[in-house]
Structures are given as structure tokens and as C-alpha cells.
């Protein structure tokens, strides 16, 4: 350590005057505090992958719900003489009409074995897949969170029994239940469809309704476990004890502390449940247990397309790739949400 002489020429007497309060405060720039939501949204916006996925999801939603309304073709419309057209080609009939001056919208994805424009079928198929995914996830969220929070909150024997039920449901093979249920519900639902006002049952298909019922019976267990885990942990948090020590009522504690800390997990889990439900639906449709013809679902389209794989690969590839894209985007977005909501994550 060398001793320096600091006073040679740089300082003057005025520098040694006491600093004013204002001068001292000018150095204290506190960064503004950010709320949990704003912070999470900011992190989410920065996540490029998540933002791209969100964009893709929005595009797909538009294609599934908005575009079909003004698309020139209907999904059940069979065009004579236009079977198995390759993408962007026309049938001889249509070609003749174009030469005569008529304007015909191109078959972007060709046509299928019954002359139906494939692009519109794929779009409507996505609509079905998305709807099933979202409705099923909503059902799961509702049942799962209620079951899980009751089990977690009460604890003790109630919890023990409820969780054993969950374990058993987990062990029963789902394919078994779905198929059996479809078969069991077929007749009663057919009878119901005959009644006035219930025709939509026929349209959707017995199988599809069975799927919803199966979701309601089986697939909520994952969500229930997660919610229960959350409630159990949160119940014991020190801030809950602190709130109680400060005199907060149970209702306030549940609302302000438990629920708000759960919401992040709930949102993420539901967002990730959607692709899982779509996955299951497409799998079942592929097996022939999904929607009734002629209504298409991406899974059933892929299943039909499998037969003509060697000659007409596009019939399989288009729905297969699209469903993969949907599930992928939801998964990536859900991952992004999870990262954004987790305050412990250091980027």
C-alpha cells in the first residue's frame, strides 16, 4: 500500500463543504417495483420461442374458426369427378369451366376420396381438434382443481381416501374405459338423439360425447394431484402463518395468498393440458372412436389418409403435420408461460 498525496492540485476548499440532502438523494435511484403479473408478462414477451408459438396458435385459430366462414368450399361438399386431386390441380370438368372464363378457387390441398376439398376439411378438422382440446381441458381444470383443493385443504383421512381413488383411476387402462364407454353409451345416446332438440348429438357423434365423458371421468387426476400438492405446500407457508398471526380471516388467506400463488400453476397446467387433450382426441379419432363422419377431425383425416399413403401422401401428411404443429405450439407456449411465472428462474 503506497501512501499518496492526493491534495496536490485537484481539490479546492469548497469540495470539503458538507453535501446537501438533495445531492445525496440524487444517487439513490431506486428501481421501480414491479408487480408479479407485469414481471411475468415482461419475461414472457422476451421469450422468442413462446412469442412465435403464440403467433402460430393465433394463425391456426384464425384458420380454424374464421377462414372457413368465407371459404368457397364446404367440408361435406362432394365435387363430382374431382376425386383424389393432387394439391393445386383441377379436375377436367373444372379445367373446362376455367377455360370458359369461370373463376374457380384452387384446391390448395387437393381433394380426398370423395371429391371434397381437402383444405377446408383440414381447417374444419383443426376446429374440432381445438374445440375438443379446450373444452376437455376446461372440464379437467374444473373437476381437478376442486377435487385437489378439497383433498389438500382438509388433509387427514379425507385426503388419504381421495388420493387412493386417484391411484386406482390411474391404474385402469384408459383405452379400455374409452372403448367400453363408447360401446355402452352408443344405444342410450342414439335414443337421445332421436328426441327433438337433441339432434346435435347425432351430428357430433356418440363417440365424441363419450370422449368428453371419459375426460371428465379419467383425465382430471393429473390436475387434481398438482392442485393438491400446491395447496398442501402453500397451507404450510410462513406467509400464511404470518397472515394468520396478523389476524387475516381464512377467506382472505385463501383468496389473497393461496389462490394467487396457485393461479400461475393452474394457468400453466391448463395450457399444457390442451395439447395433451388434443393428442388424446387425435389418437382416439385415429382409432375410429372419434367424431362421426362426415365431420372431420385431424385424427380421423390422418387415419383415412393412411390407407392411400403410397399414392396420395398429402392426405395423411397434411393433417398429421398440422396436428403436430398445434400440439407443439401449445407446448412451447405453455413452457414459456411456466418460465415466465416462475420467479426463481434466473435467465
Amino acid at each position, binding site marked *: 500500500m503506497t501512501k499518496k498525496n492526493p491534495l496536490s492540485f485537484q481539490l479546492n476548499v469548497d469540495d470539503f463543504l458538507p453535501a446537501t440532502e438533495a445531492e445525496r438523494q440524487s444517487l439513490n435511484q431506486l428501481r421501480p417495483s414491479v408487480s408479479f403479473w407485469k414481471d411475468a408478462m415482461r419475461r414472457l414477451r422476451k421469450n422468442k*420461442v413462446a412469442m412465435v408459438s403464440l403467433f402460430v396458435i393465433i394463425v391456426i385459430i384464425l384458420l380454424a374458426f374464421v377462414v372457413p366462414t368465407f371459404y368457397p368450399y364446404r367440408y361435406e361438399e362432394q365435387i363430382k369427378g374431382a376425386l383424389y386431386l393432387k394439391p393445386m390441380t383441377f379436375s377436367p370438368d373444372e379445367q373446362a369451366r376455367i377455360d370458359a372464363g369461370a373463376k374457380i378457387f384452387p384446391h390448395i390441398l387437393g381433394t380426398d376420396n370423395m371429391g371434397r376439398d381437402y383444405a377446408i376439411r383440414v381447417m374444419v378438422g383443426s376446429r374440432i381438434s381445438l374445440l375438443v382440446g379446450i373444452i376437455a381441458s376446461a372440464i379437467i381444470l374444473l373437476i381437478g382443481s376442486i377435487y385437489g383443493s378439497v383433498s389438500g385443504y382438509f388433509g387427514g383421512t379425507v385426503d388419504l381416501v381421495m388420493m387412493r381413488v386417484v*391411484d*386406482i383411476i390411474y*391404474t*385402469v*387402462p384408459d*383405452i*379400455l*374405459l374409452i*372403448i*367400453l364407454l363408447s*360401446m*355402452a353409451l352408443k*344405444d342410450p345416446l342414439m335414443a337421445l338423439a332421436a328426441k327433438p332438440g337433441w339432434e346435435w348429438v347425432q351430428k357430433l357423434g356418440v363417440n365424441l360425447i363419450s370422449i368428453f365423458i371419459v375426460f371428465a371421468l379419467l383425465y382430471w387426476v393429473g390436475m387434481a394431484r398438482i392442485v393438491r400438492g400446491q395447496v398442501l405446500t402453500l397451507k404450510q407457508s410462513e406467509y400464511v402463518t404470518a397472515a394468520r398471526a396478523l389476524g387475516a380471516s381464512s377467506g382472505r388467506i385463501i383468496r389473497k395468498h393461496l389462490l394467487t400463488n396457485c393461479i400461475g400453476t393452474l394457468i400453466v397446467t391448463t395450457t399444457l393440458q390442451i*395439447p395433451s387433450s388434443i*393428442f388424446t382426441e*387425435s*389418437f382416439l379419432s*385415429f*382409432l375410429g372412436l372419434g367424431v362421426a363422419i362426415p365431420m372431420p377431425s385431424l*385424427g380421423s383425416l*390422418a*387415419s383415412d389418409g*393412411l390407407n392411400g*399413403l*403410397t399414392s396420395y*401422401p398429402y392426405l*395423411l*401428411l397434411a393433417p*398429421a*403435420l398440422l*396436428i*403436430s404443429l398445434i*400440439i*407443439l405450439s*401449445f*407446448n*412451447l407456449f405453455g*413452457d414459456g408461460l411456466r418460465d415466465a411465472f416462475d420467479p426463481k428462474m434466473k*435467465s
Partner: protein
Amino acid sequence: MAKYIIKRVLLAVLTVFLVATITFFLMHLVPGGPFVAEKSISADAQAALNAKFGMDKPLIVQYKNYMVGILQGDFSLSLKQRGWTVADIITSRFPVSARIGGLAVLLALLVGVPMGSIAALNRGKWVDNLIIVVATCGIAFPSFVICTVGVYLFGVHLGWLPTFGLASAANYILPVFALSFYPMSYITRLMRSSMLDVIGQDYMRTAKAKGLSRGKCLFKHALRNAILPVVTYVGPMLAYTITGSFIVEKIFVIPGLGGQFVSSITNRDYTVIMGTTIFLATLIIAMNVLVDIVYKIVDPRIQLK
């Protein structure tokens, strides 16, 4: 430890029993019977078949008979595949599924664990991002997509690989890979997040402070801790995979247990359904118990109750 194992085994037996019961009554809930749809059966013949298989007795009696039979190791005869016992059906089909399933899980582990670790160690860099995207695709793409695209690409378009049956070793490539894709991706993601957790722990800093090389730190200290969640996942996953995937078996025309199960359901072959369900449930539960025991060996902190 012994007490724990006994307790788990007893609990397992109870669960299997419950599952069997539920399945039994569910099966019979569906209207009609196994012989209703058969075209060439007259009403008399139907009644005769019903009587032969004891299906004319009241449900409870049927249930009791069946359960007693199980306890004696008799899984009865298949209702639809005449002349075959259920046990025979299962034992002839299971090895096929098991072989493919086993290879698939092995592949999933051999690829998933290193990939997940590499991603964690290079967090934020392009390697990590690439691995995450590929792994997410793996869990996103439904198995029928992987199978069909695989068949199209490698079988039809490029013509490199055979696409059905199990005639040669090459036949195994597509189905094994297709089946392993999901677990491989899941394990990659799981390993990545587990490894990220572990390398931030204080004991990793202690290891470095001792002067251990990076490799030693990772392989000795990090891996053992990070692999635990993967162990928990692999147990039940192995059980599900070796009992056969219906989709893979259908698309690649493989005579495995998965396809058998589904067709027995649609055919209402009650005995086969029951036998396979019990088999599946037992396998899964056995795997769960095994995983818990392995976990206890690997992680001494675990207190088994």
C-alpha cells in the same frame, strides 16, 4: 426394508384386485355379449356357448367363479379365439411387445440422459435451444404421426427400411425408434431440468473447491442426484411400453399384446380383456414398487413409510 416391501406388495395385490373388479363389472355393463355379433350363430348355439362359458349364471356368481379361478392361476379360455387359453395368448404375444418396448426404453435412456445433461450444461446457448425444441417436438407429435411419417419417409419415399412385420433385424428399426421418440424426449426434458437444479446446489461448489475436475464433479456428484426423477419416471413408463403400443403394432403390423388388447375389447372377448388388464395392472404396480426400492437405494435421504 423387508417390512416395507411386504406392505407394498400387499397394497399392490389389493389394488390389482380392485382394478380387476372394476374392469369386470364395467365390461358387463355394456349391452350385448361376446357372441351377439357373430354372424353365423343361431340363438340356440348362442345359448349353448353362453352356458359353456358360464355366462348364463348371475353376474355375481360369474365374478366369484372368475376370481377363484385367478387365485388358482387359471385365467380361463379365450371366448373368441377358440382353443386358446388366455394365459397362452398373453405369453405368446407379450414377448414380442416386450422386445420392442425394452429396446425402445433402452434407446430412450441412452439418448435422453446425455442429451438432457448436455442441454443443462450449455444453458442458453444454441445447443440447449436446439435440444429443447427437438425434445418438445418429440413429446408433442402424436405417435401415429411419428409412425406414419416414418413409414412414408423411410419406407415409401426413400425405401430404405422395411415397414411391416418382424422378419429381420432391420424391421425393428422403425418401430423401436417410433416407440422411443416420446420417452426419449420426455427424459431429455426431465434430465435437463433436474440437472439444472443440481448444478446450482452448494455441494457442487464444495466439489469444485476440493479440486475435482469438471468431469469428476459431473459424473460423480451431479449425475447421481440428477438421475433420481428419471428413475421415478422410467419405472411405470417401462411397464406401459413393454406391454405394447396399439398404434405402433397396428401400423407396423406387429403381433404384440397392445393390438391384442384393443381387438379383444372390440370383440368383447371378456376373458382376454380381464386377463390382459390384470397383467397390465400387476406389471405397472410391480414397477412402481421396484422404482421406490431402487430410489431408496440411490438416495439415502428417502424415508420409506
